[in-house]
């Protein structure tokens, strides 16, 4: 009996000190810039759907064929209603591409034709649109003066502002729909959650109520100046210009550069992949928390003076591994991220990066179970 207890203690102690495992690191990257046919290198939005990557730039829309790498583009000369595309979503049922236009309202690209909704011909609340999300037959638009929802069946518009939603401020920044919930990231008003079934709103605010501090890291949203909110696997991921946070429905967890692998606290956007993984578009690289339970991150940056890049794996603030690689990101100022299957797509202010996830695995794996080929996932 004594022997068994001793063995159990040994095993438990071993488990406690065992490395939790190693995350997948993307090493195979492709880049797209104006030299490849993009209409502009300053990329605000990216959306991968099927065989296509849709790219919203400061001067036009592009579509990359994943199989051939061919780039098609549309500027105002080709019918795009306004030059700056800040948000993209695709209706999975119809294939329609919806575009948030920065100063131009909302556009739909379908069957080679653009349709345009703006303040002068529709019920959209403002033309300065930052994000768009398709929810069934509805299209949500995050604008600088509230959120608008367009019913594509009845052609009706609905506006959400401080008058009919718990918006302390109306400066909407991001919108996301998944699993029956619409989430709005509202500058100065945290995150608003709209339950489609009950048509009720819920707000998430910084509990300390102060702009200049975060009193406690894990007491709620870390700051009300939010930039994006993604809901996936019943987990809410939030980005702000002050750091990031995660809410699993019961507990909040904040993330800062000083206590995690987050490259910077200035986060322009995010894409949640699962309850454990999310990618953050920071001004100093693309940071992915790959295992929330162990606070394990992989941050991708490029070298400023050579065509090389690196990935730094961290747990809390400890660097576990640095993986040198060829060029990964065209630039470290990241504006948006999308994830499709095993692949990731990173919109930067100087080109697009496509991380090809051959052999991708979620979370962590013990080093011994990860073959060198997969670990290094050489192209």
């Amino acid at each position, binding site marked *: 009996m004594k022997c068994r207890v001793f063995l159990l203690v040994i095993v438990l102690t071993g488990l406690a000190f065992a490395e939790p495992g190693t995350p997948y690191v993307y090493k195979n990257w492709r880049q797209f810039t104006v030299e490849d046919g993009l209409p502009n290198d300053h990329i605000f939005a990216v959306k991968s759907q099927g065989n296509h990557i849709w790219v919203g730039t400061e001067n036009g829309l592009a579509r990359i064929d994943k199989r051939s790498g061919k780039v098609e583009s549309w500027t105002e000369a080709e019918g795009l209603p306004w030059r700056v595309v800040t948000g993209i979503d695709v209706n999975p049922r119809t294939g329609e591409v919806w575009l948030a236009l920065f100063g131009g309202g909302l556009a739909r690209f379908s069957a080679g034709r653009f349709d345009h909704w703006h303040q002068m011909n529709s019920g959209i609340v403002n033309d300065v649109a930052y994000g768009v999300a398709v929810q069934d037959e509805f299209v949500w638009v995050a604008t600088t003066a509230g959120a608008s929802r367009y019913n594509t069946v009845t052609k009706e518009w609905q506006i959400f502002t401080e008058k009919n939603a718990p918006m302390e401020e109306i400066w909407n920044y991001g919108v996301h729909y998944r699993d029956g919930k619409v989430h709005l990231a509202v500058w100065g008003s945290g995150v608003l959650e709209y339950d489609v079934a009950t048509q009720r709103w819920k707000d998430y605010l910084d509990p300390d109520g102060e702009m*200049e501090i975060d009193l406690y890291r894990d007491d709620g949203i870390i700051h009300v100046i939010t930039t994006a909110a993604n809901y996936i696997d019943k987990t809410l991921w939030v980005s702000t210009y002050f750091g990031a946070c995660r809410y699993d429905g019961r507990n909040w967890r904040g993330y800062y550069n000083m206590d995690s692998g987050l490259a910077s606290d200035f986060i322009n956007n995010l894409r949640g992949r699962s309850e454990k993984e999310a990618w953050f578009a920071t001004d100093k690289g693309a940071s992915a928390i790959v295992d929330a339970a162990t606070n394990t991150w992989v941050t991708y940056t490029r070298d400023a003076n050579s065509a090389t890049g690196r990935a730094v794996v961290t747990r809390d603030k400890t660097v576990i591994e640095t993986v040198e690689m060829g060029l990964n990101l065209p630039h470290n100022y990241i504006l948006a991220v999308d994830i499709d299957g095993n692949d990731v797509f990173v919109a930067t202010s*100087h080109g697009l990066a496509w991380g090809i996830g051959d052999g991708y695995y979620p979370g962590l794996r013990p080093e011994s179970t990860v073959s060198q080929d997969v670990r290094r996932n050489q192209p």
Partner: protein
Amino acid sequence: MKRASLSLLLLLIALPAQEVPPGVEVDAHTLEVLRLINTKNPNHVPALGLQEESAYARTADDVTPFGAVKPYKQHFLLQMEYTGPGRAIPEPQNVDSVKIGFIGPIAPTVSVATGGASHEEALGKKMLQGAQLSIEHANQRGGYLRRKVPFELVVANDNGLWGSTGNEVINMVYTQPTWAILGTIDSANSHIAIRVALKAEIVMVNTGDTDPTFIETNIPWVARNIGDDRQMGYLLVDYLIRKRNLRRIGIIRASNRYGRFGVREIKDSARRLGQPVVIEMAYRLGGDDYSLQVDRLKEAGVDAVIHWGNAREAAIILNQLRAAGMNQPYFCSDRCISSEFTHLAGHNAEGVMAGSPWNPLREDPKLAAFQKAFRSRFGEEAETYAAHAYDGMNLLIWSIQVAGLNRAKIRDILATRATPWPGVTGDIPLTSVLDDGGDVFLGEFKRGAWIYHAREDLDIPRGITSAEAKR
């Protein structure tokens, strides 16, 4: 591959600093910044040396939020930086004029704040005059000196309805386009404008919005050269509580963002000093009868009344307080320092005190010359909004003259200025969040005129920060 390597090699070769045109004052520090930002490599992020502070907004320990608890994270202590590729964008070849945007409330419209007539045109028009005068003075000195072309003001009305400020800034960025923007006054509209400026990467200097939260957004593209309501609030609290020990303070304010955010630091600081505001009444703008609010203030037995709103309401409320037999000291926000207030308040104005972001009576040849030029150009007196717009536009023009026609470099030059900008409103040291860290004052209407007191003039005590305590 070879071509790429060669390109990279060329990029590594240090570029000579751009020459600053003669007549543009520039110190060694700025010249070094100019050398560092002079890059053709879009991936290069220059190490510009970020400003760091020990206490945000010099907030004293005893009025710091949750002062007994060390917060997990303190924001705004380290200056934001711009890490994008904008510095590598070459200056355009053909330029007929250098456009600078102006957005402010200059035409009557329907106000979101009042639900009726708009109310900030008087301030906006003055702001426009100040900006215009600055542009005219710059053009008299030769315009944009690198090209010998004039500066041109692109003017937009800050309508405010349905977020139209955002549309106007979009127009200034993509259609005109402008190289930098000055504006605006309304706090909500200012927030909308800077969100666009951040995405579009253009410098925005604010000269008329005193909302403390305006600058508390972590945007590296935004600066402000007017003392804000936080600083004026701290001074009022120090005067009312630390100096005069007035225990029962009542607040009456406009029911809009200006009123709501304007008094926030006063309320919080008073509470943290153990003398919480006993009553806060909000009113709708544009009304004439404030008897309900006056009755409540009277019932509360206040020792002093603080008003935060526009000049018109400040005067009407003051008159109604006095008519109700309330002779308590009356304190205001800076907007009551105006002829409209003193005209409407009449003899009741005597003794009223107000926060002021500057001292217009300061003896300074620069200020005197500005006031004379303003009077000559517009046949009116320059006031707070005109003077600060003049300073803000001068600062922008200086940044453009030094940096050249590149939005990111204009930002860098402005954001890294090591010495205070010598404005007509006084020295303007920019803080780590690029806010105006200069002195604010207490205005007092005495014997028919406004006079201005510095903190030291009245021996107003100040709370100290931890860093000051250590020293």
